[in-house]
């Protein structure tokens, strides 16, 4: 069907009339590397690409996710991020802090595995930076608080079987298995009762399938996940209770739980007697989501 000029004009006028009313009047900037994003440009992009899921008000109540209690079932499994609440999972800053512009930009680029949030690598760098700036207009927190300082991620030490063994001890001692299960399949004793901060049921990450995490795919990303916690979810921050060198041991061990993803850690662990026995006994349940996506 060909839209005639009148219809086209009406559509443009409606969008221009409606969008400014709904968007917050304040203007923000974002700084990602050498690129500066502007919220006024981000606004146009948001109301074209994002509001269907994230909602007119940016509160995660888009028409693709219907508010709980609605007589229609929500189409999406996981509720889209509520930008008004300004609580974000994927950060490089300590728990309770705002993410940096780079953190938000990275989330746009990666998308969120196992959710409906796609990778927005199809938009230009400038577009993405503008969107980050606009996201920051939804909550007054961005005006009043500064994002925390990113945590220091020390360089990864050399991989060794001892490191993996120590990581295994930490996994036991820190009781990660209570939620994640002894084999990291997300089937621990507390797993079935977990709810996120909106009282929606949520499952812990299943290490046995796939290789990507919600907040990245590298060892550095994994390090940051448990050293900053995933705010808004049951996953806490362990920054106060793990030393950085111990944290790397835990990272190495966690990689050996990802039995469908060929990593140096898994290969090394499989070459030891203890490791090989462990890996052989692991059941693979669930669907692998693939690995090694380059950004």
């Amino acid at each position: 069907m060909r839209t005639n000029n009148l219809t086209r004009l009406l559509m443009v006028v409606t969008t221009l009339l409606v969008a400014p009313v709904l968007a917050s009047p304040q203007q923000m900037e974002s700084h990602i590397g050498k690129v500066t994003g502007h919220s006024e440009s981000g606004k146009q992009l948001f109301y074209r690409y994002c509001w269907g899921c994230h909602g007119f008000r940016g509160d995660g109540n888009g028409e693709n996710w219907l508010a709980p209690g609605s007589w229609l079932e929500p189409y999406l499994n996981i509720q889209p991020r509520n930008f008004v609440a300004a609580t974000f999972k994927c950060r490089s800053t300590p728990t309770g802090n705002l993410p940096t512009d780079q953190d938000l930009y990275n989330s746009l680029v990666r998308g969120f595995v196992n959710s409906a949030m796609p990778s927005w690598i199809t938009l230009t760098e400038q577009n993405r930076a503008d969107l980050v700036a606009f996201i920051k207009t939804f909550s007054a927190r961005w005006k009043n608080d500064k994002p925390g300082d990113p945590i220091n991620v020390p360089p990864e030490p050399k991989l060794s079987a001892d490191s993996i063994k120590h990581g295994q001890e930490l996994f036991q001692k820190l009781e990660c298995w209570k939620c994640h299960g002894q084999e990291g399949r997300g089937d621990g004793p507390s797993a079935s009762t977990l709810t996120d901060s909106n009282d929606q049921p949520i499952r812990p990450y299943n290490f046995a399938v796939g290789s990507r995490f919600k907040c990245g795919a590298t060892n550095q990303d994994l390090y940051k996940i448990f050293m900053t916690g995933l705010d808004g979810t049951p996953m806490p921050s362990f920054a106060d209770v793990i030393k950085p060198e111990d944290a790397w041991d835990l990272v190495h061990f966690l990689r050996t739980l990802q039995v469908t993803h060929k990593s140096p850690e898994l290969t090394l662990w499989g070459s030891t007697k203890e490791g090989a026995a462990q890996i052989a006994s692991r059941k693979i349940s669930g669907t692998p989501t693939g690995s090694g996506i380059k950004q």
Partner: protein
Amino acid sequence: MRTKLGYAAGLAVLAASTIGFAGPSGGSISGKVTYEGTPARQKPIDMSKEPGCASQHPTPITTETVVVGPGNTLANVVVYVSAGAPDDATPPGQAVTITQKGCQYLPHVVPMVVNQELKVVNADSNSHNIHPLAKINHEWNKSQPPGTPPFSEKFDKPEFIPVKCNIHPWMHGEFAVLKNSHYAVSGGDGGFTLPNLPPGKYTLTAWHEAYGEQTQEVTISGSETKTVSFVFKAKPY
């Protein structure tokens, strides 16, 4: 003759010292919180998934959403001055403490002033994570394994914040972050006292986690004790 004068003078000084000095500010408000109707039955908690805690409660404890006492009294109600008193310019120097013991939060309701230090203690032999579900303050979530030292946090805005542990879903507590130090939490007898109130017109608010809020106006003119009572409507569910 002089001794009698001496006695009289001494008595006068003694009397003056007791009457004139009524504390740093003056009056106080005290009273009782009760409920009418039937409160929901509190359910026993199954802690079998955490044997270290289950063993500490040979008789299982119940949920603490509604804690009542004889005479229809209501406990765990935060009674505080919501208007009429200035905000505390600096928070009290002493920290308030919340202890995780037997997979329970002790106390169930922790009142504190904005920016006052909150100490979090894990007294159990298993891990807990402490997750205040703040909507106005920053929401954070920290793991606290057994044997690790207490850590401190603070909240910079007034809010009533539910607190949970994700590992142990039955654990529930409340933080009451208030603007000033004029507050009390009703005990098992429903009683509360707010001392040291200078003369003035105050709005007193009573907050219960399930039954909501109620307010009353109270005027203090000198060093008297005003009696105030709150009656909440209990719900059977």
